[in-house]
């Protein structure tokens, strides 16, 4: 094999230089995986095999990878990070969103988001149902919201996915003593407990966690 781009290693004779694996990807790998990692490419290239566009590769990573081989256990941050790492290794730019309560189930200031309630959904490796949690992290790539925790793709911005996923927010009505009620999620993010950073947290660049990998 000749050195095709004029940089990097010297040419190798494939007949004498041992076993080689060639990974065919969609574009030059991008951050955070701009340096090729075989532990990612071994999965990404299999799950996104047979695809030839970045959009179809993202969908394939969700369906062939997350739906089939991951189990969500209230660890959206790890699955979201894994998605970003997988598609980045194929040359697809991706980012994340963190949407989080400021208050807790027992404390907060008046108007604060204290917990989140979802519509009924089926998490990867789990069963259908409504969930309540404090925060959620998901990804974006190729103009769509990609939530590996549920293997969902939704076109649009992060706020469209927020409107789609959440039905209610536990909103603080009094601080001392603490009181809160479940209020219906309003469309948009400019009213009530969705006003950030005053009453909740929106982070367009949350922590990227270490590679976890499939568990089943």
């Amino acid at each position, binding site marked *: 094999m000749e050195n095709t781009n004029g940089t990097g290693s010297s040419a190798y004779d494939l007949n004498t230089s041992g076993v080689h694996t060639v990974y065919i990807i969609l574009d030059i790998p991008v951050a955070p995986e701009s340096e090729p990692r075989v*532990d990612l490419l*071994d999965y990404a290239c299999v799950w996104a095999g047979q695809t030839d566009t970045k959009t179809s590769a993202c969908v394939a990573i969700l369906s062939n990878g997350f739906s089939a081989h991951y189990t969500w*256990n209230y660890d959206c941050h790890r699955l979201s990070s894994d998605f970003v790492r997988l598609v980045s290794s194929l040359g697809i730019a991706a980012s994340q969103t963190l949407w*989080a*309560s400021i208050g807790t189930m027992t404390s907060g200031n008046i108007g604060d988001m204290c917990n989140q309630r979802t519509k009924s959904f089926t998490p990867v490796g789990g069963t259908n149902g409504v969930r309540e949690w*404090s*925060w*959620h992290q998901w990804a974006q790539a190729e103009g769509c919201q990609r939530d590996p925790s549920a293997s969902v793709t939704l076109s649009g911005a992060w706020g469209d996915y927020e409107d789609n996923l959440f039905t209610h927010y536990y909103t603080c009505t009094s601080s001392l003593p603490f009181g809160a009620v479940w209020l219906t999620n309003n469309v948009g993010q400019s009213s009530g407990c969705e006003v950030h950073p005053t009453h909740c947290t929106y982070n367009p660049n949350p922590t990227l966690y270490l*590679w976890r*990998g499939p568990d089943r």
Partner: protein
Amino acid sequence: MNTAHVTLGFHACWLGGLILAIAAPNPNTAGKNEPRCFIADDPEVRALSRGSDSPSLYSKEMASDIVGAWVFVPSLSTAPTNAAWRQLTFESNGYLRVVFQDLTTGTTTNRTMNYIVVHRAALTSLPGKPPDLLVKWIDGNREVAVPLFTARVGFDERVPLKDGKVLKFRDIDGQEYFFQSVRQSYNR
């Protein structure tokens, strides 16, 4: 699982070593308030201790991050809310200190045991599979063990990020035990 187990449960195992009893195999007679313990030389318990040759990065991360002190959170556990394991302190040298609460009197007892992290993941196969734990101690002249499955350490969507990481595992009956870092538990 078809194996002999200590019917009197974890509580009786250390508080009443002399009345330790071995029952006929019956996986359905779970202790009410704590993970069931087994005779450590049971073939199936020995089999549990066999892990992968080359643990994944995630599995090693779990083994490292479990070191520390954890307090039981009944509201987020599927285990009985009066479960007797109140606080666990995993040390890096393989010791596990447990604060156990007597459910009748309310008094607490401290006991030091050993634990082994059993890696279920490998670098090239299911790297995201969390490890299991095998907790062992000597009761009288007999070694007993409690197998704990899918031990995960990390953030949990149900707990605010500022409250830190949690520890979760399941007992052999599938009940999940949920612990929060003692360092952060004052926030709850």
